[in-house]
């Protein structure tokens, strides 16, 4: 049978394939952290499946020594839905990017989230098309210039977290490629969640869009550029002397300066509630962006809703309980029959 799970280590999740991302690519760090977290999740290795579409990040499954399926552009959520529906006991991870997941695959992303299929979706957001060598993506900033837009991007970008919330996501988190502890934490939480866990990973593409997330990747600037979320804790960020908090009123966030010793709750700073019934709260968080606001990281929303594959499985067991297991002979003979001879 399966190897004792306790004995698994990071090495057990490394495939024999040479990793072929560009040097310095943020994907390396994500891969290492995923491999590190896997042994802790309490599942035998053979029960993990990594499914991807097309793009730099979609090479990910080849490097994981688990089951893996590198599918076609944008459709990974649909393949993953089929896998999970077929075998709910498997832990299915979707690896996608901003182009794969939100441009060509936007429709599938919308529907997989709305159905709440129990998957972990890691969306690597580098705000660029890397594999096709540097065209702008649906998350690229307005005005960005590159090969396919020499005069600058004119289509408004999409905010992945807001998209996921709009689709009715039950679990939404954001993390940063190089922030190992926070990334690992989010991966564990995503795995625990029963339903679609949507995780945006801010990822640097040093070749085509270097420094897109520099402020939050750099440990020194991260304190001022990021807003680490913790359930039950006030929304506070900033270095000593720069301490600030976020107040959200009627869905509108504002930055409130705080003295270093000031009680944020007394100062009216919002306390983070990832289980907020209304997605409006998480949506307000999703709108926080530089230069006025810090980038929230961590779990923005985590609520319970039955997952699609469970409900489907329940229909099967329900039908069998009500009618007994299907009989082919009975099925063929249903309706009017007549006998000759």
């Amino acid at each position, binding site marked *: 049978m399966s190897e004792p799970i306790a004995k698994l280590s990071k090495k057990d999740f490394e495939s024999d394939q040479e990793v072929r991302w560009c040097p310095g690519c943020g994907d390396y760090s994500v891969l290492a952290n995923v491999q590190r977290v896997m042994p802790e999740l309490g599942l035998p290795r053979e029960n993990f499946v990594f499914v991807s579409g097309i793009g730099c990040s979609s090479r990910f499954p080849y490097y994981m020594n688990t089951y893996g*399926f590198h599918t076609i552009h944008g459709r990974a959520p*649909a393949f*993953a839905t089929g*896998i999970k529906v077929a075998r709910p006991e498997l832990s299915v991870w979707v690896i996608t990017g901003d182009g794969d997941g939100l441009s060509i695959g936007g429709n599938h992303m919308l529907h997989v989230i709305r159905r709440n299929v129990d998957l972990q979706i890691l969306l690597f957001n580098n705000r660029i098309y890397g594999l096709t060598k540097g065209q702008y993506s649906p998350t690229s900033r307005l005005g960005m210039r590159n090969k396919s837009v020499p005069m600058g991007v004119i289509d408004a970008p999409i905010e992945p977290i807001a998209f996921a919330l709009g689709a009715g996501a039950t679990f939404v988190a954001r993390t940063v490629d190089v922030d190992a502890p926070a990334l690992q934490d989010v991966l564990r939480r995503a795995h625990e969640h029963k339903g679609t866990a949507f995780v945006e990973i801010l990822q640097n593409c040093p070749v085509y869009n270097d420094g897109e997330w520099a402020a939050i990747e750099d440990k020194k600037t991260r304190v001022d550029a990021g807003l680490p979320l913790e359930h039950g804790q006030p929304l506070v960020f900033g270095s000593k002397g720069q301490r600030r908090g976020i107040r959200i009123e009627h869905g509108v966030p504002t930055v409130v300066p705080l003295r270093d010793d000031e009680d944020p709750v007394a100062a009216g700073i919002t306390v983070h509630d990832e289980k907020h019934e209304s997605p409006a709260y998480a949506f307000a968080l999703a709108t926080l962006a530089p230069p006025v606001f810090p980038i929230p990281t961590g779990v923005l929303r985590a609520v319970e809703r039955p997952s699609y594959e469970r409900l489907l499985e329940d229909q099967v067991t329900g*039908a069998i309980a009500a009618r007994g297991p299907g009989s082919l002979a009975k099925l063929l003979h249903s309706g*009017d029959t007549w006998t000759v001879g």
Partner: protein
Amino acid sequence: MSSSQGPIASGSSHPKKSQRLDRVAIRFAGDSGDGVQLTGTKFTESTALAGNDLSTLPDFPAEIRAPAGTLAGVSGYQIHFASQDIRTPADQADVLVAFNPAALRACLADVRSGGLVIINSDTFTEKNFERAGYSEDPLPDARERFQLVEVPVTRLTLEAVRDLGLSQREAGRSKNFFALGLMYWLYGRPLESTFAWIESRFEGEVREANIRVLKAGYHFGETSEVFPVSFEVPRAKIEPGTYRNITGNTALAYGCVAASVTMDRPLVVGAYPITPASDVLHELAKHRSFGVKTVQAEDEIAAVSAAIGASFAGMLGLTVTSGPGFLLKQEAINLAVVAELPLVIVDVQRAGPSTGLPTKEEQADLLCALFGRSSDSPLPVLAPATPSECFSVMLEAFRIAVKYMTPVVVLSDSYLASSAEPWRLPDVAALPRQGIAFRTDPDGFFPYLRDTETLARPWAIPGTPGLEHRIGGLEKQDGKGNVSYLPENHQRMTDLRHAKIAGIVQDVPPVEPYGATSGKLLVVGWGGTHGAITTAVDDARAVGHDVASVHLRHLNPLPPNLGEVLRRFDRVLVAELNTGQLWRLLRAEFLVDAQSLTKVQGQPFRVSDLRSGIDRMLGVAS
């Protein structure tokens, strides 16, 4: 009788004479709201119970809510029944039951001259003539050319239910039962099964109304003097067994369930609603108790992708669609070709490129199935010939998919989908069982090691310890299955994929020509044209022509002896409902000087289309 006369002639209580007929074709036609399909289906059921052989064809308007009374809104249902073996719904109707002028206008050309035309005379008003596009009353002309019977169906219906307290509208809805009752009398059909059905389906006054109106129609036939005789079509000589009526779409769905049962593997269906394939999804969605999981996906691409995902995870993956959806799926199907995963794709073909004629008949996706994907992407293609054969074709499709680890395309068509015939039910216990052998042994495992006989790679599913591996759309290294960009490897893998599919021929039975083993002319067909082609061959042989036919169920690989069979005949005529797709294929494959007979009118072949094609090829005047 004219509509002004009283509905029921008095005093004719003695039984009328009954006349024997070999076969009859009846067309019911009216507005979509007239219950035409229901009338046709019920008549078909009782005809089957009466022991006739039969074939039916519904004809739906494309618009769900076309304006009432217009040609666009005409819904038709033809049933052909006989005391001998028949295979088509008949070229021409002997009887037309027209619920309104539009139905008369749409169908009269398909009625044999001198045939019986029964109309609901209450609807033959100036206003309805206009709606139907008649500039003048069509009845005087119809009286000349047909036996026209004018029955005030609406009025008689309302009269029959007057005391039930139904609104005029509600009461009027029962009028199709009047027509049904009348036809039951005319052809000596028992009413019981329809009574039972009404009882189970309706309640209260509506149930009572339908029963009364059905009886009223029957009694009208019996007592009114407009029908001096009734007819009797004796039982057909039919192979012993238990029968039921089946449409192609239902048989398809049952075939999928049967594949799941006989292979002992649950079925996962990814589908997106599309005419005329949706009924297969509807049918499969009923069968959760067989473990069938249907996923109504967000689009055609997601539907096939989910099915492939399920197959990767070890289930039987199925997707069902029609032409436009089939195209959308091709990239995902290409992945299944390279990933070498079992998958069945059903394309219930419909007419025209793009949206075309969504409810109409054509078989023009053959080359798309064979060659409609980028690069070299071979896969097996099967096509059922009759509604009931859809069942066994699905069983075969799944068997091939699993045995050879390949996607399989099944080409049905809108005619097969909705036409019905009696089906002798197979003995479930005798259906071949084919258990699935997943790879479990890690020793020496590589994902692209091949079975020496079938060239299939192993099916190693997630959850199996020690077999963790990655597959995908990038070209695979022969054997090991790692990504490979090497030129010789791509050549080798392309050749292997071809050889694997070509090798399926070992499971394809040789064809046996119908009618004669050799001779002057061979008609080759495939798919839903089988009934028309074989009937035409029978008719031509009956008048002494030297003609035979071959009907292809396997379009790829083609049957092993096909080239040799084609050469046994002086001439070959390929008959198909497209502009010559199989014809091109056979010429390319076998270098035979085959000729092509085609039709693309959104309608099946008529037997007469084929008869004149045969006569032309034989150089005889038709």
